[in-house]
Protein backbone atom coordinates (compact mmCIF):
# COMPACT_ATOMS: atom_id res chain seq x y z
CA UNK A 1 0.00 0.00 0.00
CA UNK A 2 1.35 3.39 -0.96
CA UNK A 3 1.40 5.98 1.74
CA UNK A 4 0.63 9.24 0.09
CA UNK A 5 0.36 12.64 1.66
CA UNK A 6 -1.98 14.25 -0.74
CA UNK A 7 -1.00 17.77 -1.64
CA UNK A 8 -3.98 19.92 -1.11
CA UNK A 9 -4.94 23.42 -2.04
CA UNK A 10 -6.46 25.11 0.99
CA UNK A 11 -9.84 26.46 0.04
CA UNK A 12 -10.51 28.17 3.34
CA UNK A 13 -7.93 29.35 5.83
CA UNK A 14 -7.81 28.01 9.36
CA UNK A 15 -9.58 30.60 11.50
CA UNK A 16 -6.78 31.59 13.87
CA UNK A 17 -6.23 35.33 13.74
CA UNK A 18 -9.50 36.68 15.11
CA UNK A 19 -9.62 34.41 18.17
CA UNK A 20 -9.54 35.58 21.75
CA UNK A 21 -6.04 35.43 23.17
CA UNK A 22 -4.80 32.00 22.22
CA UNK A 23 -2.84 31.38 19.09
CA UNK A 24 -2.83 27.79 17.90
CA UNK A 25 0.37 25.82 17.68
CA UNK A 26 1.98 24.77 14.47
CA UNK A 27 2.71 21.04 14.75
CA UNK A 28 5.25 19.49 12.43
CA UNK A 29 5.49 15.70 12.56
CA UNK A 30 8.31 14.52 10.34
CA UNK A 31 9.23 10.93 9.54
CA UNK A 32 8.01 9.55 12.86
CA UNK A 33 8.21 5.80 13.43
CA UNK A 34 7.55 4.17 16.76
CA UNK A 35 7.72 0.68 18.18
CA UNK A 36 7.02 -0.93 21.52
CA UNK A 37 9.66 -3.22 22.94
CA UNK A 38 7.71 -6.26 24.03
CA UNK A 39 9.06 -9.53 25.38
CA UNK A 40 8.28 -11.22 22.06
CA UNK A 41 10.28 -8.59 20.19
CA UNK A 42 9.70 -5.06 18.88
CA UNK A 43 6.16 -4.21 17.83
CA UNK A 44 6.05 -1.43 15.21
CA UNK A 45 3.05 0.85 15.70
CA UNK A 46 3.86 3.89 13.56
CA UNK A 47 5.61 3.77 10.22
CA UNK A 48 7.13 6.95 8.78
CA UNK A 49 4.31 9.32 9.61
CA UNK A 50 4.65 12.90 8.41
CA UNK A 51 1.99 15.47 9.09
CA UNK A 52 1.96 19.24 9.09
CA UNK A 53 -0.77 20.87 11.18
CA UNK A 54 -1.30 24.61 10.70
CA UNK A 55 -1.88 26.94 13.61
CA UNK A 56 -5.54 26.82 14.66
CA UNK A 57 -6.37 23.92 12.38
CA UNK A 58 -8.82 21.19 13.42
CA UNK A 59 -7.46 17.87 12.17
CA UNK A 60 -9.09 14.48 12.68
CA UNK A 61 -7.00 11.32 12.67
CA UNK A 62 -9.20 8.50 11.45
CA UNK A 63 -8.29 4.85 11.45
CA UNK A 64 -9.20 1.36 12.57
CA UNK A 65 -9.10 0.50 16.28
CA UNK A 66 -5.68 -0.19 17.67
CA UNK A 67 -3.82 1.08 14.61
CA UNK A 68 -1.55 3.42 16.55
CA UNK A 69 -3.35 6.76 16.31
CA UNK A 70 -3.45 7.11 20.08
CA UNK A 71 0.27 6.38 20.25
CA UNK A 72 0.87 9.27 17.87
CA UNK A 73 -1.08 11.50 20.24
CA UNK A 74 1.02 10.38 23.22
CA UNK A 75 4.13 11.29 21.26
CA UNK A 76 2.72 14.69 20.32
CA UNK A 77 1.76 15.29 23.95
CA UNK A 78 5.35 14.48 24.93
CA UNK A 79 4.40 11.58 27.20
CA UNK A 80 6.80 9.34 25.27
CA UNK A 81 9.65 10.11 22.86
CA UNK A 82 9.33 8.69 19.31
CA UNK A 83 11.68 5.87 18.30
CA UNK A 84 12.56 7.70 15.07
CA UNK A 85 11.78 11.03 13.51
CA UNK A 86 10.98 14.41 15.02
CA UNK A 87 7.93 16.25 16.30
CA UNK A 88 8.10 20.01 16.53
CA UNK A 89 5.76 22.55 18.06
CA UNK A 90 6.27 26.01 16.57
CA UNK A 91 9.75 24.96 15.54
CA UNK A 92 10.82 23.58 18.94
CA UNK A 93 11.30 19.88 19.42
CA UNK A 94 8.81 18.20 21.77
CA UNK A 95 10.69 16.31 24.49
CA UNK A 96 8.33 16.25 27.45
CA UNK A 97 4.76 17.11 28.48
CA UNK A 98 3.90 20.77 28.50
CA UNK A 99 0.75 22.61 29.57
CA UNK A 100 0.55 24.24 26.14
CA UNK A 101 -0.43 20.83 24.79
CA UNK A 102 -3.31 19.33 26.75
CA UNK A 103 -4.69 15.84 26.21
CA UNK A 104 -8.30 14.83 26.80
CA UNK A 105 -8.59 11.06 27.06
CA UNK A 106 -11.45 8.73 26.24
CA UNK A 107 -12.12 8.33 29.97
CA UNK A 108 -12.68 11.65 31.71
CA UNK A 109 -10.10 10.50 34.35
CA UNK A 110 -11.34 13.08 36.80
CA UNK A 111 -9.79 12.78 40.24
CA UNK A 112 -12.61 11.33 42.34
CA UNK A 113 -11.34 12.91 45.57
CA UNK A 114 -11.59 16.42 44.14
CA UNK A 115 -14.72 18.44 43.55
CA UNK A 116 -15.53 19.51 40.00
CA UNK A 117 -14.03 22.93 40.70
CA UNK A 118 -10.81 21.47 42.10
CA UNK A 119 -10.55 19.10 39.16
CA UNK A 120 -10.75 21.99 36.71
CA UNK A 121 -8.19 23.88 38.81
CA UNK A 122 -5.70 21.01 38.53
CA UNK A 123 -3.43 22.48 35.86
CA UNK A 124 -3.29 25.94 37.43
CA UNK A 125 -2.51 24.39 40.81
CA UNK A 126 0.18 22.13 39.34
CA UNK A 127 1.95 25.17 37.94
CA UNK A 128 1.46 27.18 41.12
CA UNK A 129 -0.62 29.96 39.58
CA UNK A 130 -4.01 29.03 41.03
CA UNK A 131 -4.17 31.75 43.69
CA UNK A 132 -3.75 34.43 41.01
CA UNK A 133 -6.04 32.94 38.41
CA UNK A 134 -8.99 31.47 40.28
CA UNK A 135 -11.44 33.29 38.02
CA UNK A 136 -10.24 31.26 35.05
CA UNK A 137 -11.59 28.12 36.69
CA UNK A 138 -15.02 29.72 37.01
CA UNK A 139 -14.85 30.88 33.39
CA UNK A 140 -13.93 27.41 32.13
CA UNK A 141 -16.76 25.87 34.13
CA UNK A 142 -19.31 28.30 32.77
CA UNK A 143 -17.98 27.71 29.25
CA UNK A 144 -19.01 24.05 29.54
CA UNK A 145 -22.21 25.01 31.36
CA UNK A 146 -21.43 23.34 34.68
CA UNK A 147 -21.06 26.32 37.01
CA UNK A 148 -23.69 25.06 39.41
CA UNK A 149 -21.92 21.72 39.76
CA UNK A 150 -18.67 23.26 41.03
CA UNK A 151 -19.04 21.71 44.48
CA UNK A 152 -20.09 18.20 43.45
CA UNK A 153 -17.82 15.19 43.30
CA UNK A 154 -17.23 13.26 40.04
CA UNK A 155 -19.19 10.17 41.11
CA UNK A 156 -22.34 12.29 41.13
CA UNK A 157 -21.94 13.28 37.46
CA UNK A 158 -23.24 11.58 34.33
CA UNK A 159 -20.77 10.44 31.66
CA UNK A 160 -21.41 13.45 29.47
CA UNK A 161 -21.04 15.90 32.36
CA UNK A 162 -17.81 14.24 33.45
CA UNK A 163 -16.38 14.57 29.96
CA UNK A 164 -17.40 18.23 29.88
CA UNK A 165 -15.52 18.74 33.16
CA UNK A 166 -12.51 17.06 31.53
CA UNK A 167 -12.80 19.55 28.65
CA UNK A 168 -13.01 22.47 31.09
CA UNK A 169 -9.96 21.09 32.91
CA UNK A 170 -8.13 21.11 29.57
CA UNK A 171 -9.11 24.56 28.27
CA UNK A 172 -8.50 26.31 31.60
CA UNK A 173 -4.81 25.93 30.77
CA UNK A 174 -5.34 27.93 27.58
CA UNK A 175 -3.52 25.33 25.51
CA UNK A 176 -2.32 26.18 22.03
CA UNK A 177 -2.86 22.54 21.08
CA UNK A 178 -5.75 20.42 22.26
CA UNK A 179 -5.17 16.70 21.80
CA UNK A 180 -8.41 14.71 21.90
CA UNK A 181 -8.10 10.94 22.16
CA UNK A 182 -11.59 9.66 21.29
CA UNK A 183 -13.06 12.02 23.87
CA UNK A 184 -16.65 11.15 23.01
CA UNK A 185 -16.12 7.44 22.47
CA UNK A 186 -17.89 6.28 25.59
CA UNK A 187 -20.85 8.64 25.55
CA UNK A 188 -24.37 7.71 24.54
CA UNK A 189 -25.25 8.79 21.01
CA UNK A 190 -27.43 11.78 21.95
CA UNK A 191 -24.91 13.26 24.38
CA UNK A 192 -22.31 12.63 21.74
CA UNK A 193 -24.07 14.69 19.10
CA UNK A 194 -24.57 17.57 21.53
CA UNK A 195 -20.93 17.46 22.63
CA UNK A 196 -19.70 17.47 19.03
CA UNK A 197 -21.41 20.80 18.44
CA UNK A 198 -20.03 22.10 21.73
CA UNK A 199 -16.51 21.11 20.72
CA UNK A 200 -16.79 23.02 17.47
CA UNK A 201 -18.08 26.17 19.14
CA UNK A 202 -15.41 25.94 21.84
CA UNK A 203 -12.72 25.64 19.18
CA UNK A 204 -14.19 28.56 17.23
CA UNK A 205 -14.34 30.75 20.33
CA UNK A 206 -10.76 30.08 21.43
CA UNK A 207 -8.44 29.38 18.54
CA UNK A 208 -6.24 26.47 19.58
CA UNK A 209 -5.10 23.78 17.19
CA UNK A 210 -7.00 20.51 17.59
CA UNK A 211 -5.80 16.98 16.92
CA UNK A 212 -8.72 14.60 17.27
CA UNK A 213 -8.31 10.84 17.19
CA UNK A 214 -11.50 9.01 16.34
CA UNK A 215 -12.73 5.88 14.63
CA UNK A 216 -16.09 7.46 13.92
CA UNK A 217 -16.21 8.66 10.31
CA UNK A 218 -19.24 10.96 10.84
CA UNK A 219 -17.60 12.57 13.84
CA UNK A 220 -14.37 13.25 11.95
CA UNK A 221 -16.26 14.78 9.01
CA UNK A 222 -18.63 16.83 11.15
CA UNK A 223 -15.89 18.36 13.29
CA UNK A 224 -12.64 18.62 11.36
CA UNK A 225 -11.34 20.86 8.62
CA UNK A 226 -9.05 18.10 7.51
CA UNK A 227 -9.19 14.33 7.88
CA UNK A 228 -6.11 12.11 7.92
CA UNK A 229 -6.83 8.43 7.32
CA UNK A 230 -4.50 5.81 8.80
CA UNK A 231 -3.90 2.22 7.75
CA UNK A 232 -3.87 -0.85 9.99
CA UNK A 233 -0.94 -1.25 12.40
CA UNK A 234 1.81 -0.23 11.87
CA UNK A 235 -0.04 2.97 11.05
CA UNK A 236 0.84 4.84 7.90
CA UNK A 237 -0.96 7.82 6.48
CA UNK A 238 -3.21 6.51 3.75
CA UNK A 239 -4.97 9.68 2.76
CA UNK A 240 -5.30 13.28 3.83
CA UNK A 241 -8.23 15.36 2.58
CA UNK A 242 -10.05 18.57 3.35
CA UNK A 243 -13.63 18.79 4.52
CA UNK A 244 -14.58 21.78 2.41
CA UNK A 245 -17.74 22.72 4.30
CA UNK A 246 -18.35 25.88 6.31
CA UNK A 247 -19.37 25.82 9.99
CA UNK A 248 -21.93 25.33 11.41
CA UNK A 249 -22.26 22.13 9.45
CA UNK A 250 -25.37 20.18 8.73
CA UNK A 251 -25.31 16.45 9.34
CA UNK A 252 -27.61 15.78 6.42
CA UNK A 253 -25.62 17.72 3.84
CA UNK A 254 -25.06 15.77 0.60
CA UNK A 255 -21.41 16.83 0.47
CA UNK A 256 -20.89 15.16 3.88
CA UNK A 257 -22.45 11.96 2.52
CA UNK A 258 -20.07 12.07 -0.44
CA UNK A 259 -17.07 12.54 1.80
CA UNK A 260 -18.27 9.73 4.06
CA UNK A 261 -18.40 7.42 1.07
CA UNK A 262 -14.89 8.50 0.17
CA UNK A 263 -13.57 7.99 3.71
CA UNK A 264 -15.22 4.61 4.15
CA UNK A 265 -13.76 3.60 0.80
CA UNK A 266 -10.30 4.45 2.09
CA UNK A 267 -10.99 2.26 5.12
CA UNK A 268 -12.23 -0.56 2.88
CA UNK A 269 -15.78 -0.32 4.23
CA UNK A 270 -17.66 1.28 1.34
CA UNK A 271 -19.54 -1.84 0.25
CA UNK A 272 -22.66 -0.84 2.22
CA UNK A 273 -22.62 2.77 0.97
Amino acid at each position, binding site marked *: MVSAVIERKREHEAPAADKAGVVGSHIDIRGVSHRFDLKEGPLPVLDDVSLDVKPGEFVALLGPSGCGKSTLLRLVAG*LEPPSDGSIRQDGRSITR*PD*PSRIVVFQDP*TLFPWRTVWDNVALGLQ*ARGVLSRERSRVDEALSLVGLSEFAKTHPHQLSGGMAQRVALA*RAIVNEPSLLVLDEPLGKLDSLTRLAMQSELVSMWQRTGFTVLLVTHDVEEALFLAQRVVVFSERPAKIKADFEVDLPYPRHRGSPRLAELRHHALGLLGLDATW
Partner: protein
Amino acid sequence: MSSATLTSTGVVPPGAEAAAPAAVAAPAEETRRARTSAGNPGVWWSGAIAALIWIAVGAVTRFIPNASIGFTEWNLTAEFGTGTALVGGLLLALAVIGPRLGAVAPVRGSGPWLIALAALTAVWQLLTAKYAVLPAPFFAPPQALVEVYLDDYARLADSFWNSLKLLAHGFFLGAAIGFLTGVGMGWSRVVGYWVHPLVRFIGPIPPTALLPLAFFFSPSSYAAAVFLIALATGFPVAVLTWSGVASVNRNYYDVARTMGASEWFLVLRVAIPAALPQVFVGLFMGLGGAFSVLVVAEMMGVKSGLGWYLTWAQGWASYTNMYAALIIMALLCSGLITLLFGVRDRVLSWQKGTLKW
Protein backbone atom coordinates in the same frame (compact mmCIF):
# COMPACT_ATOMS: atom_id res chain seq x y z
CA MET B 1 -80.85 -8.03 53.29
CA SER B 2 -83.87 -6.66 55.04
CA SER B 3 -82.21 -3.29 55.70
CA ALA B 4 -81.34 -3.02 52.05
CA THR B 5 -84.96 -3.57 51.12
CA LEU B 6 -86.03 -1.03 53.70
CA THR B 7 -83.74 1.74 52.55
CA SER B 8 -84.38 0.99 48.92
CA THR B 9 -87.87 2.38 49.49
CA GLY B 10 -86.37 5.75 50.47
CA VAL B 11 -85.10 8.52 48.23
CA VAL B 12 -81.45 7.51 48.39
CA PRO B 13 -80.44 4.69 46.04
CA PRO B 14 -78.95 1.72 47.93
CA GLY B 15 -75.56 1.88 46.28
CA ALA B 16 -74.97 5.49 47.27
CA GLU B 17 -76.20 4.84 50.76
CA ALA B 18 -73.79 2.00 51.25
CA ALA B 19 -70.89 4.12 50.02
CA ALA B 20 -71.66 7.13 52.19
CA PRO B 21 -70.81 5.72 55.64
CA ALA B 22 -67.58 4.29 54.24
CA ALA B 23 -66.66 7.71 52.93
CA VAL B 24 -67.32 9.19 56.35
CA ALA B 25 -65.46 6.43 58.15
CA ALA B 26 -62.32 6.73 56.07
CA PRO B 27 -61.30 10.26 57.16
CA ALA B 28 -62.07 9.34 60.78
CA GLU B 29 -59.76 6.33 60.52
CA GLU B 30 -57.12 8.56 58.96
CA THR B 31 -57.23 11.17 61.70
CA ARG B 32 -57.06 8.47 64.37
CA ARG B 33 -53.95 6.99 62.77
CA ALA B 34 -52.41 10.43 62.36
CA ARG B 35 -52.98 11.15 66.03
CA THR B 36 -51.27 7.92 67.07
CA SER B 37 -48.21 8.56 64.95
CA ALA B 38 -47.76 12.30 65.56
CA GLY B 39 -49.93 13.99 68.18
CA ASN B 40 -50.29 11.07 70.59
CA PRO B 41 -47.58 8.52 69.74
CA GLY B 42 -48.75 5.97 72.33
CA VAL B 43 -46.43 3.72 74.29
CA TRP B 44 -42.88 2.70 73.31
CA TRP B 45 -43.65 -1.00 73.61
CA SER B 46 -40.22 -2.59 73.30
CA GLY B 47 -38.91 -0.08 75.86
CA ALA B 48 -41.72 -0.96 78.23
CA ILE B 49 -41.03 -4.69 77.92
CA ALA B 50 -37.32 -4.07 78.51
CA ALA B 51 -38.25 -1.98 81.58
CA LEU B 52 -40.36 -4.82 83.01
CA ILE B 53 -37.52 -7.30 82.50
CA TRP B 54 -35.08 -4.92 84.21
CA ILE B 55 -37.46 -4.67 87.16
CA ALA B 56 -37.60 -8.49 87.17
CA VAL B 57 -33.79 -8.59 87.20
CA GLY B 58 -33.91 -6.35 90.27
CA ALA B 59 -36.41 -8.65 91.96
CA VAL B 60 -34.38 -11.78 91.14
CA THR B 61 -31.21 -10.14 92.49
CA ARG B 62 -32.91 -8.91 95.63
CA PHE B 63 -35.10 -11.85 96.61
CA ILE B 64 -33.36 -15.03 95.50
CA PRO B 65 -30.65 -15.74 98.08
CA ASN B 66 -27.05 -15.97 96.92
CA ALA B 67 -25.58 -19.47 96.81
CA SER B 68 -22.98 -19.70 99.55
CA ILE B 69 -19.92 -21.69 98.58
CA GLY B 70 -16.78 -21.47 100.67
CA PHE B 71 -15.82 -17.93 101.61
CA THR B 72 -17.36 -16.32 98.60
CA GLU B 73 -19.65 -13.51 99.52
CA TRP B 74 -21.00 -11.03 97.00
CA ASN B 75 -21.31 -7.53 98.34
CA LEU B 76 -23.68 -4.94 96.95
CA THR B 77 -26.28 -7.61 96.00
CA ALA B 78 -29.19 -5.71 97.54
CA GLU B 79 -27.95 -2.40 96.13
CA PHE B 80 -27.57 -3.90 92.67
CA GLY B 81 -31.12 -5.30 92.87
CA THR B 82 -32.53 -1.95 93.91
CA GLY B 83 -30.46 -0.19 91.27
CA THR B 84 -31.62 -2.35 88.36
CA ALA B 85 -35.23 -2.11 89.52
CA LEU B 86 -34.86 1.67 89.66
CA VAL B 87 -33.37 1.73 86.16
CA GLY B 88 -36.31 -0.43 85.05
CA GLY B 89 -38.74 1.99 86.67
CA LEU B 90 -37.17 5.00 84.97
CA LEU B 91 -37.19 3.18 81.64
CA LEU B 92 -40.84 2.32 82.12
CA ALA B 93 -41.65 5.97 82.78
CA LEU B 94 -39.72 6.94 79.66
CA ALA B 95 -41.51 4.29 77.59
CA VAL B 96 -44.95 5.46 78.71
CA ILE B 97 -44.52 9.24 78.99
CA GLY B 98 -41.53 9.79 76.70
CA PRO B 99 -43.40 9.42 73.39
CA ARG B 100 -45.76 12.24 74.43
CA LEU B 101 -42.78 14.51 75.07
CA GLY B 102 -41.06 13.40 71.86
CA ALA B 103 -38.07 12.19 73.88
CA VAL B 104 -37.92 8.61 72.63
CA ALA B 105 -37.02 9.00 68.97
CA PRO B 106 -33.20 8.70 69.34
CA VAL B 107 -33.38 5.46 71.37
CA ARG B 108 -36.49 3.88 69.87
CA GLY B 109 -34.50 1.52 67.66
CA SER B 110 -32.48 0.11 70.54
CA GLY B 111 -35.54 -1.36 72.31
CA PRO B 112 -34.79 -4.97 71.31
CA TRP B 113 -31.21 -4.57 72.50
CA LEU B 114 -32.40 -3.27 75.89
CA ILE B 115 -34.58 -6.38 76.19
CA ALA B 116 -31.67 -8.65 75.25
CA LEU B 117 -29.34 -6.93 77.71
CA ALA B 118 -31.86 -7.26 80.52
CA ALA B 119 -32.40 -10.94 79.76
CA LEU B 120 -28.65 -11.56 79.61
CA THR B 121 -28.13 -9.81 82.95
CA ALA B 122 -30.83 -11.99 84.49
CA VAL B 123 -29.18 -15.16 83.15
CA TRP B 124 -25.77 -13.93 84.27
CA GLN B 125 -27.09 -13.17 87.75
CA LEU B 126 -28.77 -16.60 88.05
CA LEU B 127 -25.77 -18.57 86.73
CA THR B 128 -23.24 -16.85 89.01
CA ALA B 129 -24.46 -15.42 92.32
CA LYS B 130 -27.73 -17.29 92.66
CA TYR B 131 -26.99 -20.88 91.64
CA ALA B 132 -23.20 -20.82 91.15
CA VAL B 133 -23.37 -22.82 87.91
CA LEU B 134 -20.42 -20.69 86.81
CA PRO B 135 -18.36 -20.83 89.99
CA ALA B 136 -16.19 -18.29 91.77
CA PRO B 137 -13.42 -17.27 91.49
CA PHE B 138 -13.47 -17.77 87.71
CA PHE B 139 -16.79 -16.02 87.26
CA ALA B 140 -18.34 -13.07 89.01
CA PRO B 141 -21.88 -11.64 89.11
CA PRO B 142 -22.53 -8.12 87.81
CA GLN B 143 -22.64 -6.59 91.29
CA ALA B 144 -19.05 -7.74 91.85
CA LEU B 145 -17.96 -5.73 88.80
CA VAL B 146 -19.79 -2.71 90.16
CA GLU B 147 -17.90 -3.20 93.40
CA VAL B 148 -14.57 -3.27 91.55
CA TYR B 149 -15.42 -0.05 89.73
CA LEU B 150 -16.40 1.62 93.02
CA ASP B 151 -13.35 0.39 94.96
CA ASP B 152 -10.63 0.56 92.32
CA TYR B 153 -11.72 3.38 90.06
CA ALA B 154 -8.56 5.41 90.62
CA ARG B 155 -6.23 2.65 89.46
CA LEU B 156 -8.54 1.74 86.56
CA ALA B 157 -8.81 5.35 85.40
CA ASP B 158 -5.04 5.66 85.60
CA SER B 159 -4.63 2.43 83.63
CA PHE B 160 -7.12 3.59 81.03
CA TRP B 161 -5.26 6.85 80.57
CA ASN B 162 -1.85 5.17 80.35
CA SER B 163 -3.04 2.56 77.86
CA LEU B 164 -4.56 5.29 75.73
CA LYS B 165 -1.27 7.19 75.82
CA LEU B 166 0.77 4.13 74.95
CA LEU B 167 -1.58 3.17 72.12
CA ALA B 168 -1.52 6.71 70.76
CA HIS B 169 2.29 6.89 70.85
CA GLY B 170 2.76 3.50 69.23
CA PHE B 171 -0.06 3.84 66.73
CA PHE B 172 0.89 7.29 65.44
CA LEU B 173 4.57 6.41 65.25
CA GLY B 174 3.85 3.11 63.48
CA ALA B 175 1.26 4.62 61.17
CA ALA B 176 3.59 7.47 60.19
CA ILE B 177 6.56 5.20 59.52
CA GLY B 178 4.40 2.61 57.79
CA PHE B 179 2.77 5.27 55.62
CA LEU B 180 6.09 6.81 54.56
CA THR B 181 7.57 3.37 53.91
CA GLY B 182 4.55 2.41 51.83
CA VAL B 183 4.64 5.61 49.76
CA GLY B 184 8.40 5.18 49.24
CA MET B 185 8.00 1.57 48.16
CA GLY B 186 5.13 2.41 45.84
CA TRP B 187 6.77 5.43 44.29
CA SER B 188 10.52 4.94 44.12
CA ARG B 189 12.09 2.00 42.37
CA VAL B 190 15.21 2.21 44.55
CA VAL B 191 13.28 2.32 47.83
CA GLY B 192 11.11 -0.52 46.59
CA TYR B 193 14.17 -2.61 45.70
CA TRP B 194 15.74 -2.30 49.14
CA VAL B 195 12.77 -2.03 51.45
CA HIS B 196 10.35 -4.49 49.88
CA PRO B 197 12.37 -7.63 50.83
CA LEU B 198 12.81 -6.29 54.37
CA VAL B 199 9.10 -5.68 54.76
CA ARG B 200 8.34 -9.10 53.35
CA PHE B 201 10.82 -10.75 55.70
CA ILE B 202 10.23 -8.86 58.95
CA GLY B 203 6.64 -7.76 58.52
CA PRO B 204 4.85 -11.07 58.96
CA ILE B 205 6.68 -11.92 62.22
CA PRO B 206 4.30 -11.52 65.16
CA PRO B 207 5.63 -8.39 66.88
CA THR B 208 5.45 -10.08 70.27
CA ALA B 209 8.10 -12.56 69.12
CA LEU B 210 10.51 -9.63 68.96
CA LEU B 211 9.89 -8.76 72.62
CA PRO B 212 13.41 -9.58 73.87
CA LEU B 213 15.03 -7.65 71.04
CA ALA B 214 12.75 -4.71 71.65
CA PHE B 215 13.75 -4.59 75.29
CA PHE B 216 17.42 -4.98 74.55
CA PHE B 217 17.60 -2.17 71.99
CA SER B 218 15.17 0.30 73.51
CA PRO B 219 16.46 3.01 75.83
CA SER B 220 13.56 2.45 78.23
CA SER B 221 10.94 -0.20 78.77
CA TYR B 222 8.28 2.32 77.77
CA ALA B 223 10.07 2.83 74.47
CA ALA B 224 10.08 -0.95 74.00
CA ALA B 225 6.32 -1.07 74.50
CA VAL B 226 5.87 1.79 72.01
CA PHE B 227 8.14 -0.03 69.57
CA LEU B 228 6.04 -3.21 69.72
CA ILE B 229 2.80 -1.36 69.12
CA ALA B 230 4.39 0.68 66.34
CA LEU B 231 5.59 -2.51 64.69
CA ALA B 232 2.15 -4.10 64.90
CA THR B 233 0.62 -0.97 63.36
CA GLY B 234 3.30 -0.18 60.83
CA PHE B 235 3.35 -3.41 58.85
CA PRO B 236 -0.25 -3.44 57.60
CA VAL B 237 -0.16 0.31 57.02
CA ALA B 238 3.03 0.01 54.96
CA VAL B 239 1.78 -2.89 52.86
CA LEU B 240 -1.59 -1.37 52.12
CA THR B 241 -0.20 2.10 51.43
CA TRP B 242 2.29 0.53 49.06
CA SER B 243 -0.36 -1.43 47.20
CA GLY B 244 -2.58 1.66 47.14
CA VAL B 245 0.16 3.84 45.62
CA ALA B 246 1.22 1.12 43.19
CA SER B 247 -2.30 0.58 41.90
CA VAL B 248 -3.15 4.22 41.16
CA ASN B 249 -4.68 4.62 37.70
CA ARG B 250 -1.72 5.48 35.39
CA ASN B 251 -3.90 7.92 33.47
CA TYR B 252 -4.12 10.16 36.54
CA TYR B 253 -0.37 10.70 36.26
CA ASP B 254 -0.58 11.32 32.49
CA VAL B 255 -3.30 13.92 33.01
CA ALA B 256 -1.35 15.70 35.74
CA ARG B 257 1.95 15.52 33.84
CA THR B 258 0.55 17.03 30.65
CA MET B 259 -0.68 19.93 32.78
CA GLY B 260 2.79 20.65 34.07
CA ALA B 261 2.80 18.77 37.38
CA SER B 262 6.13 18.26 39.12
CA GLU B 263 7.22 14.96 40.64
CA TRP B 264 6.25 16.23 44.10
CA PHE B 265 2.84 17.23 42.86
CA LEU B 266 2.36 13.72 41.47
CA VAL B 267 3.23 12.17 44.83
CA LEU B 268 1.40 14.54 47.15
CA ARG B 269 -1.62 15.49 45.05
CA VAL B 270 -2.18 12.40 42.93
CA ALA B 271 -0.61 9.24 44.36
CA ILE B 272 -1.40 9.81 48.03
CA PRO B 273 -5.02 10.98 47.71
CA ALA B 274 -5.71 8.17 45.27
CA ALA B 275 -4.21 5.65 47.69
CA LEU B 276 -6.02 6.95 50.78
CA PRO B 277 -8.89 4.43 50.77
CA GLN B 278 -6.30 1.64 50.90
CA VAL B 279 -4.30 3.51 53.54
CA PHE B 280 -7.37 3.56 55.75
CA VAL B 281 -7.82 -0.19 55.38
CA GLY B 282 -4.23 -0.47 56.58
CA LEU B 283 -4.90 1.89 59.50
CA PHE B 284 -7.86 -0.22 60.63
CA MET B 285 -5.79 -3.38 60.46
CA GLY B 286 -2.94 -1.60 62.24
CA LEU B 287 -5.21 -0.44 65.03
CA GLY B 288 -6.44 -4.01 65.49
CA GLY B 289 -2.83 -5.17 65.61
CA ALA B 290 -2.01 -2.49 68.16
CA PHE B 291 -4.82 -3.70 70.44
CA SER B 292 -3.67 -7.28 70.19
CA VAL B 293 -0.11 -6.51 71.31
CA LEU B 294 -1.16 -4.03 73.98
CA VAL B 295 -1.40 -6.68 76.71
CA VAL B 296 2.00 -8.16 75.89
CA ALA B 297 3.59 -4.74 75.52
CA GLU B 298 2.32 -3.81 78.96
CA MET B 299 3.39 -7.08 80.54
CA MET B 300 6.90 -5.78 80.95
CA GLY B 301 8.22 -2.48 81.98
CA VAL B 302 5.10 -0.44 82.68
CA LYS B 303 3.44 0.08 86.04
CA SER B 304 0.00 1.09 84.84
CA GLY B 305 -2.23 0.29 81.90
CA LEU B 306 -5.19 -1.93 81.13
CA GLY B 307 -3.00 -4.75 79.83
CA TRP B 308 -0.84 -4.42 82.90
CA TYR B 309 -3.96 -4.44 85.08
CA LEU B 310 -5.17 -7.65 83.42
CA THR B 311 -1.87 -9.41 84.10
CA TRP B 312 -1.72 -8.01 87.60
CA ALA B 313 -5.28 -9.12 88.46
CA GLN B 314 -4.67 -12.60 87.07
CA GLY B 315 -1.50 -12.76 89.14
CA TRP B 316 -3.54 -12.94 92.31
CA ALA B 317 -6.51 -14.72 90.74
CA SER B 318 -8.82 -11.76 91.03
CA TYR B 319 -10.83 -12.53 87.96
CA THR B 320 -13.49 -10.06 88.92
CA ASN B 321 -10.96 -7.25 88.54
CA MET B 322 -9.87 -8.82 85.26
CA TYR B 323 -13.42 -8.75 83.87
CA ALA B 324 -13.86 -5.17 85.00
CA ALA B 325 -10.66 -4.16 83.16
CA LEU B 326 -11.66 -6.20 80.11
CA ILE B 327 -14.91 -4.30 79.78
CA ILE B 328 -13.04 -1.00 79.95
CA MET B 329 -10.57 -2.27 77.38
CA ALA B 330 -13.42 -3.25 75.06
CA LEU B 331 -14.89 0.23 75.42
CA LEU B 332 -11.49 1.80 74.71
CA CYS B 333 -10.85 -0.27 71.58
CA SER B 334 -14.36 0.17 70.28
CA GLY B 335 -14.17 3.90 70.96
CA LEU B 336 -10.91 4.23 69.05
CA ILE B 337 -12.25 2.26 66.09
CA THR B 338 -15.32 4.51 66.08
CA LEU B 339 -13.02 7.52 66.12
CA LEU B 340 -11.02 6.18 63.18
CA PHE B 341 -14.25 5.53 61.27
CA GLY B 342 -15.25 9.12 61.96
CA VAL B 343 -11.93 10.39 60.60
CA ARG B 344 -12.24 8.11 57.57
CA ASP B 345 -15.77 9.27 56.78
CA ARG B 346 -14.58 12.86 56.95
CA VAL B 347 -11.44 12.40 54.88
CA LEU B 348 -13.01 10.08 52.31
CA SER B 349 -16.35 11.85 52.09
CA TRP B 350 -15.86 11.92 48.31
CA GLN B 351 -16.31 8.15 48.14
CA LYS B 352 -19.77 6.83 47.56
CA GLY B 353 -21.35 4.16 49.68
CA THR B 354 -18.80 3.95 52.48
CA LEU B 355 -19.54 1.43 55.23
CA LYS B 356 -20.89 2.79 58.47
CA TRP B 357 -19.43 1.42 61.75
